[in-house]
């Protein structure tokens, strides 16, 4: 059975259809990438799945349970976590405290939450930063903190919104390693990503969005050969020079 099943979700902003009848399924531990040019509706799709936007149509089913239009915190509680494209650390508190907020999702005990947070920081190589304020951290660390917080909520699946954007290649490489490790631990990942190298090396399946619609879907090798896809996305990206 699929872990996440998105059925024909649609989202309109006034006259603009940001996402049109999008469907996708993700199995346990799978890594799926959602790609497409700017404005294709990737982040909108994320926001619907994670409960930040109300869908104008369609259903989201997670673990056999319909989660369409539940609140974000309820969805997180059911084991579907997310990160934000523009990272949103709690700047005024320490890295450890940031991760503890996530760890409190399934406990009220401060000791358990702290142990859990420390464990997550350790597994993601952030333990040395534990007592630093989140505010002053470099972007690469903040991106990793964003993932660490989501992992601390004990999810079965994480929505990663451009977790590697703005990173240097070596830093991106570290995050790729993190994501792989999560997937090996049985956490499914749906990622939105612009860096094709990342997508190609991580994703088992790619879904290409354009103007809110799926135009191609399949294994990475197939998708990059798809003509429509090259025109819509890769062609443009190549012209821009990334």
């Amino acid at each position: 059975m699929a872990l996440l099943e998105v059925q024909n979700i649609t989202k309109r902003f006034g006259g603009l259809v940001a996402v049109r009848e999008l469907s996708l399924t993700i199995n346990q531990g799978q890594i799926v990438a959602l790609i497409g040019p700017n404005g294709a509706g990737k982040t909108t799709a994320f926001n619907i799945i994670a409960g930040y936007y109300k869908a104008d149509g369609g259903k989201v089913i997670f673990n056999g349970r319909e989660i369409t239009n539940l609140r974000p915190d309820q969805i997180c509680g059911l084991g579907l976590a997310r990160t934000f494209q523009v990272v949103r650390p709690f700047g005024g508190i320490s890295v450890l405290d940031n991760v503890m907020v996530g760890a409190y999702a399934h406990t009220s005990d401060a000791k358990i939450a702290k142990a859990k947070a420390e464990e997550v920081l350790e597994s993601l190589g952030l333990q040395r930063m534990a007592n630093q304020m989140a505010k002053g951290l470099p972007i690469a660390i903040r991106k990793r903190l964003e993932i660490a917080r989501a992992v601390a909520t004990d999810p079965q699946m994480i929505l990663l919104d451009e977790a590697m954007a703005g990173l240097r290649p070596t830093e991106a490489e570290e995050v790729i390693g993190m994501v792989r490790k999560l997937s090996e631990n049985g956490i499914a990942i749906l990622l939105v990503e612009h860096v094709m190298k990342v997508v190609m090396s991580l994703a088992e399946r790619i879904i290409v969005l354009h103007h809110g619609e799926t135009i191609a879907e399949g294994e990475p090798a197939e998708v990059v050969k798809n003509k429509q896809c090259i025109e819509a996305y890769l062609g443009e990206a190549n012209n821009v020079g990334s």
Partner: protein
Amino acid sequence: MNTQISTKSSRSPVSRLLHTLFGNWDRTQLSISFILVGLMAISPLFVRSPYYMGIIILACLYSFIGISWNIVSGFSGQLLIAHIIFLALGGYTTIVLLNTFRVMPWVGILLGGVVAALAGWVIALITLRYGLKMDYFALFTIALLVALRTLFLKWDFVGGAVGMYIRLAEPSVAKMIFATKPPYLYIALTLLVAGILIQYQIYRSKMGKYFIAIREDEAAAAALGVNTSRYKTIAVLIGAALAGVGGGFYVMYVTFIDPTGLFNLGINVEMVMAGPIIGGLGSLLGPILGALVNKPIAELVRGTLAEGRSGISLIVYGVFLITSIIVLPRGLAGLFHNLYLRLYRPSQDIE
């Protein structure tokens, strides 16, 4: 002191005690709070003048009220500007129960807290229902204050514009009427100790972490499983309940309440906001440090300048507040924290 704190492994009971009291910043703030409480508790031994005693009592009460506001606006970040509403409601509840229904003030004060909490709950419901946040939330509470003042001015049952007095009778513990100041001080100190402990427990618990997460970034908090509506409501409820209790005691102490005195934004600044802001909003120590500085200065300014042109004292007080915000954006507690880190961090490195 520095070296004593750092030697965790040393067996000396003194250093172990120091470590327990000052081992981390949170505990240090708690310890300093209790040292300040202790100093206030022994102050009647040195302070004979009822005037100065009165300032200490109000500084103590302002600390408690500051804590109640700090939990809402400092921890959960909701700009509850017109927090004094809850003080007024607690005060009115206490005095109406006493004068009209002969309910002992000890009970009345607690019921004042309950009434204020109910009001807080209604405010939270309305603001959440209509998605009022930050400045809109602040404006809503100010509008409510003005509306309530008008209502109470016209409401004869609670004395209208004249307000209500406590009929001074023979001193009586049951009626919370005392001939001297110290008993009031010890009641205020009891409230303050409760406030310090409640604030500390919240800060160290899941609830406190969730409050702060909401303050820092509400959407991100929700993504991590924080039911933001519920926790914002809880923060307002707790802050309102404590403020209601504080208002009840305030009225018993000054023996008088009227709508313009407490449904009043100017008084709100002095009683509620100045302390935590001077002391450091969001810190554990801020409300107390701030109140202990704010109350005497407000009193001094009023005492020395009130005879001249009216309003001069308010201008001077305003300049003082503005200066303290500019010079110490994180308040006195922020200053103390830096000092603490300077004393403490090098010793950690040695380990």
